[in-house]
């Protein structure tokens, strides 16, 4: 420890240092940051620092504000720019004396891969491969197929549910039996749903997402998607919530916080509620429609078309400026397994803590709704609408439960198909309408929390109208055009 232990105190150009000194000497209150840092934030025009000073300084705040304004007007350039330029000068001087760069850096495979993934060719084929293996194979086949099959069928249906049902059979009151066990009980529905269906799917999804995040691929995805997302009033940055929405719309709606303007947050929340099916829903739709490949294709085409048209319209109608797209592109790296696992588990834990109570609540709501007769009333209200879509009355229950469990609605279709009640065309209409139909209770709750009641109600009623309107239109079109499905 003989050399280079001298602490380096970076200094800005003298005129800026003078201004910082002047402002920090006026700060008397206690702050979470050093007075120098507070002074720099105030001079740069940071809003949060300003309101903190108003809280902590009382009557002196006005004087401080006046001094800051006076200093600002003395400089010909915005102070945030001058401060930032000062930082870069200090950093460059430090780097010049300490950093040695190789003279002819060889382009490594990482660098090449980094360049390839940014260009349309071969970036877009790579993107399709990532989506296919990362999402379809890993999340869809492994998570939603194999893991859910094991946990739900073997563990719950085979072991836990029979045990619970045998136990509640001993209870004297039927309302209590139904609250805990049987078809819609807290344990047999709520807990099973959260643990056996949602947890494995989002767990695998979080793992894939953390891998992509740590490899540096996500910003490249944003870059490639930027132009397409501009069509719907968003920019490349919004690809992250939209991709997350394919996993879980609830979480994706929370992540719209990372978008820059309230205009983008609103559009992204709206599109997530309308046209982005979550993994639970996606898995069941694939299963229900896969015997009819043409219907599956039509379903995909209709949903993408709705997303583009509705997104484009909302981009034109929602007020606010387009926000520009600018993002740092990190180099492609090998993800560290430790980091990936830590992130995955932290997200799963957060998700479980947030979502498990909601699912338990949902099963209680279904129980209360059935017991009190509210559901029967709601079913009678819905029946004319499903009739307008050309669907049998049984489909009304599918829509109602679809709000409580987004995939349950679609799974209910499965029973209708195997019972021979729905034709392939009716199935297509129902699948499209259910995909567009209002999101699950959890996502609606988060929409209220993140966007406020006014925006959330507007989105929900618009989604409801669009889902039934477009379902009706599709039904009529299929009747006229009538391709064999």
């Amino acid at each position, binding site marked *: 420890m003989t050399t280079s232990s001298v602490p380096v105190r970076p200094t800005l150009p003298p005129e800026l240092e003078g201004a910082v000194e002047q402002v920090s000497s006026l700060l008397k209150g206690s702050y979470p940051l050093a007075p120098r840092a507070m002074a720099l934030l105030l001079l*740069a*025009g940071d809003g949060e620092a300003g309101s903190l000073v108003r809280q902590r300084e009382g009557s002196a705040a006005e004087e401080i504000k006046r001094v800051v*304004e006076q200093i600002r007007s003395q400089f*010909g*350039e*915005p102070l*945030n*720019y001058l401060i*930032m*330029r000062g930082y*870069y*000068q200090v950093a*460059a*001087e430090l*780097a*010049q004396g300490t950093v040695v*760069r190789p003279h002819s850096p060889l382009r490594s495979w990482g660098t090449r891969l980094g*360049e390839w993934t*940014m*260009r*349309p060719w071969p970036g877009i084929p790579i993107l399709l491969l990532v989506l296919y293996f990362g999402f379809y194979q890993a999340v869809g086949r492994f998570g939603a197929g194999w893991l859910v099959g094991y946990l739900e069928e073997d563990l719950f249906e085979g072991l836990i549910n029979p045990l619970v049902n045998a136990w509640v059979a001993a209870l004297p009151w039927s309302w209590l039996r139904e609250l805990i066990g049987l078809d819609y009980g807290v344990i047999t529905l709520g807990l099973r749903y959260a643990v056996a269906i949602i947890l494995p799917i989002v767990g695998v999804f979080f793992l894939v997402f953390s891998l992509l995040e740590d490899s540096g691929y996500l*910003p490249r995805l*944003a*870059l*490639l998607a*930027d*132009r397409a997302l*501009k069509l719907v009033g968003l*920019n*490349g940055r919004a690809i992250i919530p939209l991709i997350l929405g394919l996993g879980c719309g609830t979480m994706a709606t929370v992540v719209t916080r990372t978008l820059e*303007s309230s*205009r983008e947050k609103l559009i992204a929340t709206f599109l997530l509620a309308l046209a982005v099916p979550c993994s639970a829903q996606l898995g069941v739709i694939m299963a229900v429609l896969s015997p009819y490949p043409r219907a599956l294709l039509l379903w995909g085409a209709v949903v993408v078309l709705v997303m583009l048209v509705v997104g484009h319209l909302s981009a*034109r109608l929602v*007020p*606010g*400026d*387009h*926000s*520009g*797209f*600018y*993002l*740092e*592109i*990190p*180099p492609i790296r090998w993800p560290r397994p430790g980091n990936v696992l830590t992130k995955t588990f932290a997200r799963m834990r957060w998700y479980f803590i947030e979502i498990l109570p909601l699912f338990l609540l949902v099963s209680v709501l279904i129980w209360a709704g059935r017991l009190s007769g509210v559901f029967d009333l709601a079913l009678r209200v819905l029946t004319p609408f499903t009739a307008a879509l050309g669907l049998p009355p049984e489909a009304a229950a599918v829509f109602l439960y679809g709000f409580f469990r987004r995939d349950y609605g679609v799974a209910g279709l499965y029973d209708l198909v195997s019972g021979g009640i729905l034709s392939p065309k009716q199935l297509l209409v129902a699948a499209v309408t259910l995909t567009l139909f209002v999101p699950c209770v959890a996502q609606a709750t988060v929409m209220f929390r993140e966007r406020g009641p006014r925006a959330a109600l507007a989105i929900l009623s618009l989604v409801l109208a669009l889902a039934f309107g477009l379902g009706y239109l599709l039904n009529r079109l299929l009747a006229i055009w009538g391709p064999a499905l």
Partner: protein
Amino acid sequence: MRGCGQGRSRRGSGGPGFGCRQWGGPGLRLRGWRWRWGRRAGKRAGEEGGRVPVAGQAGVPLVSLVEGTGGRVIGLDTGDPLRLQRLLALGLVPGVWVEVVQRFPCYVVQVGLTQVALDLDTARGVYVAPEPLPAEPSPPPAQP
């Protein structure tokens, strides 16, 4: 120069060699309304609209460079103080040397050891003085 594109859109707010772009065509009223709304929300009173240096800049917008060439950043014109702050934080500070890595679907520029992606609109507001590649990859910013 300030008057050129002012009060219309950040897209066309001038700069030598770039000219004035006029708004026109369908959607004019709606866009104007939207623009004003965004402006009201984004701009702080008494502050220049996200442009450095405030007075006088020469050179060409980044979009006129071809891939593999570069230049020294001499000015930024973003139309919004917050956006200016973010670009500065990414290292796009007047005085640094940048190289255009790719132009489509987004601009990607090499700034020192960092790569930054910019869309067309943002790249139009970055003004550079074209220069051949220096021996040292990232020289310190020029003294003001």
